[in-house]
């Protein structure tokens, strides 16, 4: 609110006028009077224009409405009981904190303290790992390598509960490509050259089983895989089989080496090898195995360890991929089977929960830039600081910015498996938001007409005096009313994508609330711009009246002061003059000395007379030849 001083008229008081008038000679009074300014020379039109300017740049909307709306939505999100495990409160994350941080948010300095809470995601993920142990291990059953073994265990004749399959053969054939001999995939001789292996035993040099015929070895043994993943209800027997027999798990090595390794891991083989070497150096006696292990070169051990670590990763990835597919993919089969098996939805819920919690965290990091964009739009308009001039392009630019932020700052901090899902989710969310903006603003008239009653009520609420309802309550009521109309839009744009993906999750309500909040903010912005009820115009008209009334009052006061003082002075002057002139007249008539009256008159008129006494005059007459009247 500009100070009223800008529009104020100069003030003229009676004393002021009196002083000015009495300082000058009565002869000058008229001039003074005509030159006095009773009001400023500013044209009333200029004043009007100034007031209009003042009203064009008014943005209290953010404080009035957008803040309460956002806090509302944030509360719904952060205080949701299902997200309790994310421990927002313990981490000091609250609605007002996020709101304040979003006000200071800038794309340049991301990675504030909020990055830490994402470590909580580790906990969520480990909980997902707990799936492996939490369930009755009876589910796993017994390890069987081949179908025969399985049958022997007591499974049915056509059971598929065995680990081995034909992939080995295919892999090996690919490696040899019809030749008789090929390189070993892991082994090197003591001199560094690669060992050679033979495809068929009969071609191999004599030596029997310990000679260099090929064995296609499972780097991570099937048993180990079975032990690790067998109890995972999210993995079926087929899955286990596939995991065990991925190409990455195969290595063609000599039978000799394979016999030594058996079902242990390469790490264990290395330990054996090191122990043997130590013992040999110490001169101790070696066991049979240890002795055999000494035939392995160090180079082989190195290759083997490298291969093992790569394979572990590959197996883990494959396992997780299949796990997720089974839980969230469309293979309903595994879910219902599982549900039947354990008689409760508990585990699936747990899986969903960890996913949701991960999503919750990502959303918290996403909300800040989103809020920033929304308040920026309301405060400065769509095109501000985007380098675009048309609204559509500006919206697109803003969301691109948002999505870049997510990709560079948020998603990389997520660990492995959920990244794909979450990245997908946010892409859909951001694309949907862009559509929502365009759609909502394009059909704002429809929104307004459909929700007309709601809007009338909402405006009544907004223009209530502060005493009857607090700002937050007002915003709340407003939001509820507007939300009814904007929800249809939100649902329309997000039904096929996000809302469906979150079916059955508690996050759905939260996301819906968030999106409704965004849509309502847009409606608020549009309504303000449309100024449907000419609220702004009325305020401005009131201010115009106020200012002009003040000016008119001042002019009247000035004129009164002026008139009073002027008339008073004129009357005084007249009185004085008459007195002097009467005495002058009398003196003339009575043949008396007129000089004193004349001096009084000259004083009255503030005219300087040099000759003050008769003696001076005589002297003047004597001295000067000619009298000059000047």
């Amino acid at each position, binding site marked *: 609110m500009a100070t009223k001083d800008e529009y104020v008229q100069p003030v003229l008081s009676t004393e002021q006028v009196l002083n000015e008038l009495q300082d000058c000679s009565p002869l000058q009074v008229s001039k003074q009077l005509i030159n006095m300014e009773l009001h400023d020379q500013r044209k009333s039109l200029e*004043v009007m224009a100034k007031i209009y300017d003042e009203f064009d740049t008014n943005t209290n909307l953010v404080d009035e409405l957008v803040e309460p709306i956002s806090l509302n939505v944030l509360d719904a999100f952060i205080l949701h009981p299902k997200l309790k495990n994310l421990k927002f409160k313990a981490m000091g994350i609250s609605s007002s904190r996020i709101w304040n941080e979003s006000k200071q948010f800038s794309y340049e300095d991301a990675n504030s303290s909020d990055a830490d809470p994402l470590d909580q995601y580790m906990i969520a993920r480990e909980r997902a790992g707990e799936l492996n142990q939490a369930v009755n291990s009876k589910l796993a059953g017994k390890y069987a390598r081949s179908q025969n073994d399985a049958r022997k265990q007591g499974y049915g004749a056509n059971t598929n509960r065995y680990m081995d399959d034909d992939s080995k053969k295919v892999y090996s054939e690919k490696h040899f490509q019809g030749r008789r001999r090929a390189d070993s995939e892991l082994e090197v001789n003591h001199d560094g050259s690669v060992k050679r292996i033979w495809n068929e035993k009969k071609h191999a040099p004599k030596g029997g089983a310990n000679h260099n015929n090929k064995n296609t070895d499972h780097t991570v043994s099937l048993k180990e895989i079975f032990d690790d993943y067998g109890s995972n209800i999210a993995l079926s027997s087929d899955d286990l089989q596939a995991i065990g027999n991925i190409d990455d798990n195969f290595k063609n090595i000599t039978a000799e080496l394979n016999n030594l390794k058996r079902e242990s891991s390469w790490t264990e083989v290395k330990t054996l090898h090191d122990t043997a070497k130590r013992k040999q150096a110490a001169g101790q006696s070696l066991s049979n195995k240890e002795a055999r292990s000494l035939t392995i070169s160090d180079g082989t051990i190195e290759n083997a360890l490298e291969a093992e670590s790569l394979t572990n990763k590959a197996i883990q990835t494959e396992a997780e991929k299949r796990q997720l597919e089974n839980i969230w993919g469309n293979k309903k089969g595994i879910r219902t089977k599982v549900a039947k098996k354990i008689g409760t939805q508990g585990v699936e819920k747990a899986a969903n929960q960890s996913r949701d919690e991960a999503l919750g965290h990502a959303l918290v990091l996403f909300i800040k830039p989103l809020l920033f964009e929304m308040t920026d739009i309301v405060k400065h308009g769509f095109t501000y600081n985007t380098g675009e001039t048309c609204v559509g392009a500006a919206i697109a630019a803003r969301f691109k910015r948002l999505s870049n932020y997510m990709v560079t700052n948020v998603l990389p901090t997520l660990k492995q498996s959920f990244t794909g899902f979450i990245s997908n989710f946010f892409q859909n969310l951001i694309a949907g938001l862009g559509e929502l903006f365009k759609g909502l603003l394009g059909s704002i008239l429809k929104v307004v007409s459909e929700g007309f009653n709601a809007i009338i009520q909402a405006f009544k609420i907004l223009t209530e005096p502060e005493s009857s309802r607090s700002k937050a309550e007002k915003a709340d009521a407003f939001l509820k009313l507007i939300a009814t109309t904007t929800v*249809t839009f939100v649902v329309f744009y997000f039904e096929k994508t996000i809302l469906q993906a979150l079916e059955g999750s508690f996050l759905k309500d939260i996301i819906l609330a968030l999106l409704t909040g965004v849509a309502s903010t847009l409606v608020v912005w549009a309504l303000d711009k449309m100024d449907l009820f000419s609220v702004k115009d009325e305020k401005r008209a009131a201010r115009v*009246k106020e200012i002009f009334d003040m000016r*008119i009052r001042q002019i009247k006061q000035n004129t009164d002061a002026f008139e009073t003082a002027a*008339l008073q002075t004129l009357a005084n002057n007249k009185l004085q003059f008459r007195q002097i002139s009467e005495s002058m*007249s009398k003196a*003339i008539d009575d043949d008396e000395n007129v000089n004193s009256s004349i001096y009084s*008159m000259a004083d009255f*008129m503030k005219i300087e007379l040099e000759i003050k006494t008769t003696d001076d*005059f005589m002297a003047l007459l004597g001295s000067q030849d000619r009298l000059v009247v000047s």
Partner: protein
Amino acid sequence: MFGRLGNWASSAISRVVDKVVEVAKKITNKVIEKGSKCWNGFTGKTTFDKAEQLYQQITDRYDKNKRDYDQASGQLIADIDTQVSSINSFKQDIYQVQFKRFVSLANRLHNVTVKGQPFEELFDDAILEAKTTASVEHRGNLFLIDFNKFDLVRVASYVLTLGFYSRKKAKQTLLKVQEEEVRIDEEITKMKSHQRQLKVVAKSIDGVVEYFDVLINNYSKLLDRFEYGIQSQRHKQMVQSDEIFAHKLDFRLIPVAHIEEFQALFNLSIVLKQMANLGYLSESGKLNPKDTSQAKALFEKVASIQAIAA
């Protein structure tokens, strides 16, 4: 859901438009304009009518006030003009008559010169006129919507926007006219204030006229007294000497009373001279541009004549 809404909306709107077209065809313009209260309220015509009424009122008010003001100030300025003319003639009188007399009388005693010229005040009426008045804004600037122009497209647009647009514009118009009303009030107040100022100025000028009148009167009476005194002294001297054409009287020999009179006249002359040289309303000799050009022409003429003569 949205699809159905859209369909409903578009069919509803087309129904309305059809209806409007139908109605327009059947009924004349006047009837629709004067239409039902409901229609007027919906489109905002009632607000618009209010605005028009108000606009008419303030235009009338402003015009009336301006007329009154023009008349009153015209009268006042004419009065002031007359007074200034009389002051001018007083000034002339002071130089042409009074000072002349004084000089010729005083010459018996001592040589006297009066310097300067009377200052003929030619003041521009513009000094007295009010410095700014802006009249009521043109209607086009205030009225954002005009219900008097009727056409079908307009009506349809009002309906399609559910009257929002037209109501809003009508409201804005009313507000603008109300704002204009306040602004015009300020202008009217300024005019009234100026009128009062002029009255005061007129009064003060009256005072000045009185100064002149009285003082000149006194001066004249004093001159009479002085003349009488001088004459009587001259006669005395003439009696005492043989010469007919007497020289100047010796001021040392005449009675003090006359010296005092002389002194009084001398001082009063100074006063009158100052008064005669003053401008009472204008700052300084405001030259009439016509005068300057005339003067210039004259000078050139003189120069050419001199050239011929030379």
